[in-house]
């Protein structure tokens, strides 16, 4: 019974979906306030989701129906399994040595599913969006992994819960590895295809990217998977860099919420400030700037953590 609760309600499905909608609403609201606008009401993500569920689901000819429905479900499933390993209130439903690597692998499945969705959609914009999402995947993934392995080396363990545990009370990894945190945030922006790096789904260049042909329920699943990925990315960063949930229940919970809102604010300001980069600029930024920095960061942690 207890595992059913943790699976379905608290750190599991219910909590993550609610957080996804809350963060999505917060993000759109903050961006609107930056631009001098009012921004959508609180129930907007819920209304969008229900409306999309009730919309007709057009399947354009030439798309293999089974695969095109399987992809959003696959990416949703992989994102949900990630929520098992990330400790929210000091307890992670499942935690074992090396779950950080499993989480990183599971987080990259939606990116590949997005690529495949564009590839099978057959439309010109779909293929173009798919090519770009693959190009983008290669340019942000390596610095992202290196940045996240920094804290693991420092805490010399690959278990997220343990890494978070070590930071409670002592200095956060953010203080020890500020560069690693920045690289991780940039990698997260790339993975979530958020505004400065939303090249695969750029409205003005490739209409809808891989999702141009999707409508109705499948589109709702895609959006939900994207939002949940945002939530879990933020929780992952909190546990690795900002010390996870600290000891006392009241202070720990509040601290966790504040840290999460801080990162959402950070992501929103990034998307308001910068114009979208070109795909070759991103690749060149990824390999000429981010990767060497990540290497330097790793060398410093190994030499320091040792």
């Amino acid at each position, binding site marked *: 019974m207890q595992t059913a609760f943790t699976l379905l309600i608290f750190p599991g499905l219910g909590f993550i979906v609610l957080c996804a909608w809350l963060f999505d609403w917060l993000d759109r609201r903050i961006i609107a306030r930056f631009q*001098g606008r009012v921004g959508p009401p609180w129930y907007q993500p819920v209304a969008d989701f229900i409306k999309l569920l009730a919309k007709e689901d057009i399947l354009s000819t030439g798309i293999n129906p089974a695969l095109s429905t399987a992809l959003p479900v696959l990416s949703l499933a992989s994102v949900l399994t990630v929520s098992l390993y990330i400790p929210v209130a000091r307890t992670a439903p499942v935690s074992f040595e090396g779950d950080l690597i499993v989480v990183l692998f599971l987080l990259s499945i939606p990116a590949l599913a997005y690529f495949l969705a564009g590839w099978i959609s057959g439309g010109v914009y779909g293929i173009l969006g798919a090519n770009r999402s693959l190009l983008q995947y290669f340019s942000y993934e390596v610095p992202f992994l290196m940045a996240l392995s920094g804290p693991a080396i420092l805490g010399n363990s690959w278990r997220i819960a343990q890494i978070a545990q070590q930071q409670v009370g002592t200095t956060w990894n953010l203080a020890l590895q500020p560069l690693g945190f920045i690289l991780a945030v940039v990698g997260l922006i790339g993975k979530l295809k958020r505004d400065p790096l939303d090249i695969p789904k750029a409205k003005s*260049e490739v209409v809808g990217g891989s999702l141009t042909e999707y409508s109705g329920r499948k589109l709702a699943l895609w959006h939900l998977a994207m939002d949940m990925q945002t939530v879990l990315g933020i929780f992952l960063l909190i546990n690795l860099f900002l010390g996870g949930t600290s000891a006392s229940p009241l202070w720990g919970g509040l601290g966790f919420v504040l840290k999460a809102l801080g990162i959402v604010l950070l992501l929103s300001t990034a998307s308001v400030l910068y*114009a979208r980069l*070109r795909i070759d600029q991103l690749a060149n930024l990824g390999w000429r700037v981010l990767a060497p920095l990540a290497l330097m960061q790793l060398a410093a942690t190994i030499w320091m953590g040792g």
Partner: protein
Amino acid sequence: MKSDKMIIPIGPQHPLLKEPIAFTLTVEGERVMEAGMRMGYVHRGIERLAQERSYVQTIHLVERVCGICSHVHATTYCQGVEALLGLEIPPRAQYLRALLCELERIHSHLLWLGVLGKNLGLDTIFMYAWRDREIVLDIMEDLSGGRVSHAINVIGGVRSDVDEAHCDEILRQLDLLTEPLARLVGLVEHERTLKARTQNVGHLSLEQIRRYCVVGPVARASGLDVDLRRDMPKAPYTDLSFKVITHTAGDVWARTLVRMQEAVESVRLCREILAQLPDGPISVKAKRRVPPGEVVSRAEAPRGELIYYIRSDGSEKPARLKIRTPTLTTLITLPEQLREVNMADVPAVLSGVDLCIACADR
């Protein structure tokens, strides 16, 4: 990734284009090899319609050639007909027309900046530019009653007048506009990612500009020092002092700078016009029948040189009305600009030339 040729339609319906025009880009990998273009989606046969309407009705037709620069079209048309009639319109009317022309230039350039920002993924500039543009629209609405199509022109002068209190109100709103406009210009000049997306993109050399007879800010950004307000000055511009802004880089970034500095210059010009506003009547009675003759009337629209050729055969209806809008010249250079361009730069190039398809298709 298969790297054979792919045909990408930037079709009549595309978020990049406000209006329908069909580009077909043959792309290899990420590089555009060839750009084809099909116009005519917005062709309403205005020149044909004008032959079936009287001179007065044609004013309303001509104002709807393009929603952004409707006043300049009406002004050029009325100046042509007044030249045919041999009418000398009162100086106050000329000043009021010039005032609205300059306001329309500011609103057109701010609108363009917003669209450029939106196409490059920086929605903030779109929101800020269009929010400040609302001030200009309010001024135009107070002046003529209409936000976008003003219908302030009549043959022989202007329809609505401006009294003393109204002038101060406009000056106050202009002051309200200068500070955000200066902030926008500063933002555009120092925004690194915007500069990265627009520098040496869609480059046009001065030689190409001369060969393709390109006009307007696109030409001035490549160093062509031509501005009809100074080279063929009509009434108010003779005693207004303003400088023509040119750059030499000739890419989308130089065009941004030219347009933004022109907007700032136009705000200053509006103040000067209001300061020297002569008093007197605002319109002169015009006969319905126009004596036979032909005239070419030119004006400087926000996008460049606008030509009206009007031929009258003494009846109430114009025998022939030819409109040549500035966007046509930039459309000619587009296939040349788009060749060898990275696919991700296409939005920057397309929004850099400030396309107004309704103008081009007539």
